[in-house]
């Protein structure tokens, strides 16, 4: 009896895991191939740019990222899979890009990094790329619980003139077609992504803004607590899925 129960349990947990699907698999085969081949993936240009910046001093007196963190292949491995994380100094959740901005301001003293600017996207891409292939593993600390709950609450709230929540499309109608496009499940597995529509790399927050503008809502600001909360919820929702950075998306 117990063996049957275990078998059933194993069955069910596999079924649940299989229901989640990266947006990678919703793309046509050529776009999937582009992501999988580093020599064809345009997102790798941002990763390489970030690698150069990693060793670069933002001003002659400053330290480079590498001066403190050393070889990113080991020091940054797994980091992006754990972000957003709780920042004890701010007493709030912080996203990976926010942490890089903070490091630049407080420890390197260089010019501030702008959200969606080339330098920040390159550094974020490079750092996140060090986690490629690792399972998304959000921290279980108490500090992140409030952010996740806030993120989930926004996720299920209808927004904008079109009065749609994230959940209505990306949970209830994922796999359906909005005009010609398959609605993905909305897992943030590959950010920053190279989006074919943008013809450049952009952050999850830029992508979220796109959806908010699409439903005619007032978007949250870059780096806002709301966006970081949504990101924290989405990462929890994608727990265990593989980091793909730099992903390609339509």
């Amino acid at each position: 009896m117990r063996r049957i129960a275990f078998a059933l349990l194993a069955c069910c947990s596999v079924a649940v895991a299989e229901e989640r699907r990266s947006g990678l698999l919703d793309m046509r085969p050529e776009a999937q191939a582009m992501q999988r081949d580093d020599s064809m993936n345009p997102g790798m240009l941002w990763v390489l740019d970030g690698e150069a910046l990693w060793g670069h001093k933002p001003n002659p007196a400053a330290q480079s990222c590498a001066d403190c963190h050393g070889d990113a292949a080991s020091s940054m491995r797994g980091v992006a899979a754990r972000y957003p994380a709780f920042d004890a100094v701010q007493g709030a959740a912080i996203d990976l890009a926010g942490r890089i901005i903070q490091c630049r301001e407080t420890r390197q003293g260089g010019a501030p990094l702008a959200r969606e600017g080339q330098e920040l996207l390159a550094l974020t891409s490079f750092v996140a790329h060090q986690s490629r292939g690792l399972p998304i593993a959000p921290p279980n600390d108490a500090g992140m619980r409030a952010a996740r709950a806030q993120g989930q609450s926004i996720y299920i709230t209808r927004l904008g003139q079109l009065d749609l929540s994230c959940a209505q499309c990306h949970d209830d109608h994922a796999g359906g077609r909005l005009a010609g496009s398959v609605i993905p499940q909305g897992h943030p597995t590959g950010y920053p992504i190279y989006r074919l529509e943008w013809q450049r790399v952009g952050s999850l927050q830029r992508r979220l803004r796109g959806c908010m503008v699409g439903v005619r809502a007032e978007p949250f600001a870059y780096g806002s607590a709301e966006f970081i909360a949504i990101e924290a919820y989405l990462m929890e929702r994608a727990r265990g899925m593989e980091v793909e950075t730099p992903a390609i998306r339509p």
Partner: protein
Amino acid sequence: MVASDAVVQSLTGSAGDPARGRAIVADRQKGFCLLCHSGPFPEEPLQGNLAPSLAGAGSRWNEGQLRLRLMDNKRVNPESIMPAYHRIEGLNRVGANWRDRPILSAAEIEDVLAFLMGLKAERAP
């Protein structure tokens, strides 16, 4: 204004124009109906499959029922993903460009209604 499940009176006091209505339905910035619905629009290649086809809409509903569903489908089905095309209250964080005005004006609602009421189900021979 709402009688049971219908809005019987025209919002403008007159009948809409079906040709203008058709253009609104197909316009991806105006009615954007084809993002979710398919319909008899052979010239429009990218149509959604999230909602029933518009074909035959004029046979499924009478004019008053369809007017209500265009104005605010959530009056009939609170879980609907269809936007309320003629309601401004009860919305969250509406963008500055869109605040305090409905998606479609009263005249536009009547135009779309006139077009949809003309989409009759084909009768078996």
